[in-house]
């Protein structure tokens, strides 16, 4: 991440799955916001002098709660990077963890607020943290990392969330090439009893479940056929019914171990 300390409006550039996103901060708390952003985006650094491909403008008005502002900035960075890669790659609303030895990565697809960040927080330590939000997959199966800050609830059930640096909760970004080894749909259910149940979906059912959790899918050529080919190459999309994310560890390990 590069910071320009010489102008009234200040910039940093973060790497969001290969998109250098410039964040220009102005207002009376620009210094404070930039300091926090530098810490929070520690795993998405760019080399000094990296030019921004796209830009997010932030006005740090002192009437705003800093943590609320930082959460909005994270969302804006994600949206801006996703829009910048429209039509160029598969973008899934999914958390992703990887094996540090093999680079095999498993994506866990789910709508917002249904378990992705909790899974990453629970199972991420000891593995590579790829993302808790947007999993980007190229045609050859390469996964582009996006180890963004995590939005964690202040207390269980709280509406308020704090942006949290990955390193502060024991998460480590990928240090090598990543390839997709598994595609799972999270189906968390408080009423689920017993160990997780894994259901491998027929290709068409998998597509129907995956498509709503993609971004800009129709902008790609042959979008459905590519998604079908990818899911079939991975042995199908797996829907996992579970209650506690800690119970998914064995499933994750099996998928990572089975990867070529």
């Amino acid at each position, binding site marked *: 991440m590069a910071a320009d300390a010489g102008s009234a409006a200040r910039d940093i550039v973060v790497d969001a799955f290969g998109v250098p996103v410039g964040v220009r901060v102005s207002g009376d708390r620009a210094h404070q916001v930039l300091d926090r952003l530098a810490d929070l985006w520690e795993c998405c650094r760019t080399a000094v002098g990296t030019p921004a491909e796209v830009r997010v403008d932030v006005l740090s008005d002192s009437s705003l709660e800093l943590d609320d502002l930082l959460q909005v900035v994270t969302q804006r960075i994600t949206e801006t990077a996703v829009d910048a890669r429209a039509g160029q790659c598969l973008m899934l609303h999914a958390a992703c963890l990887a094996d540090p030895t093999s680079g095999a990565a498993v994506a866990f697809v789910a709508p917002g607020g249904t378990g992705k960040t909790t899974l990453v927080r629970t199972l991420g330590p000891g593995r590579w943290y790829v993302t808790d939000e947007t999993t980007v997959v190229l045609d050859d199966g390469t996964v582009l990392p996006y180890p963004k800050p995590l939005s964690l609830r202040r207390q269980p059930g709280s509406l308020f969330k704090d942006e949290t640096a990955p390193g502060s909760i024991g998460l480590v970004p990928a240090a090598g090439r990543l390839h997709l080894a598994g595609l799972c749909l999270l189906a968390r259910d408080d009423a689920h009893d017993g160990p997780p149940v894994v259901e491998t979906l027929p290709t068409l059912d998998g*597509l129907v479940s995956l498509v709503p959790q993609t971004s800009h899918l129709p902008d790609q050529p042959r*979008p459905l056929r590519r998604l*079908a080919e990818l899911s079939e190459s991975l042995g199908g999309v797996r829907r996992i019914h579970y209650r506690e994310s800690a119970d998914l560890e064995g499933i994750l390990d099996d998928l990572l171990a089975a990867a070529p």
Partner: protein
Amino acid sequence: MRVRRLPLTDRVDRDGESVVLVGHTVVRLSPVATVLLDRCEAWTDLDVLTDQVVAALGPAPRGVDPRRAVESAAEALVAQGLLERG
């Protein structure tokens, strides 16, 4: 009633069924709907389509009127933006 197929974004077929993408919307199609979509590139009467569905999938189950089943499937496809009615 006659219908004609509208352009769609992409389509995947497996075992006589299909999933189509229309803009950002994904739609799962039954075997009847899949045959209908295949057979009406140009304006086609529902009676002709009914014969083609029966030829492709076999006779309708006991108690099911094939003409009404095809009409119902066609109405659903029109509502989903996959067919237009002429």
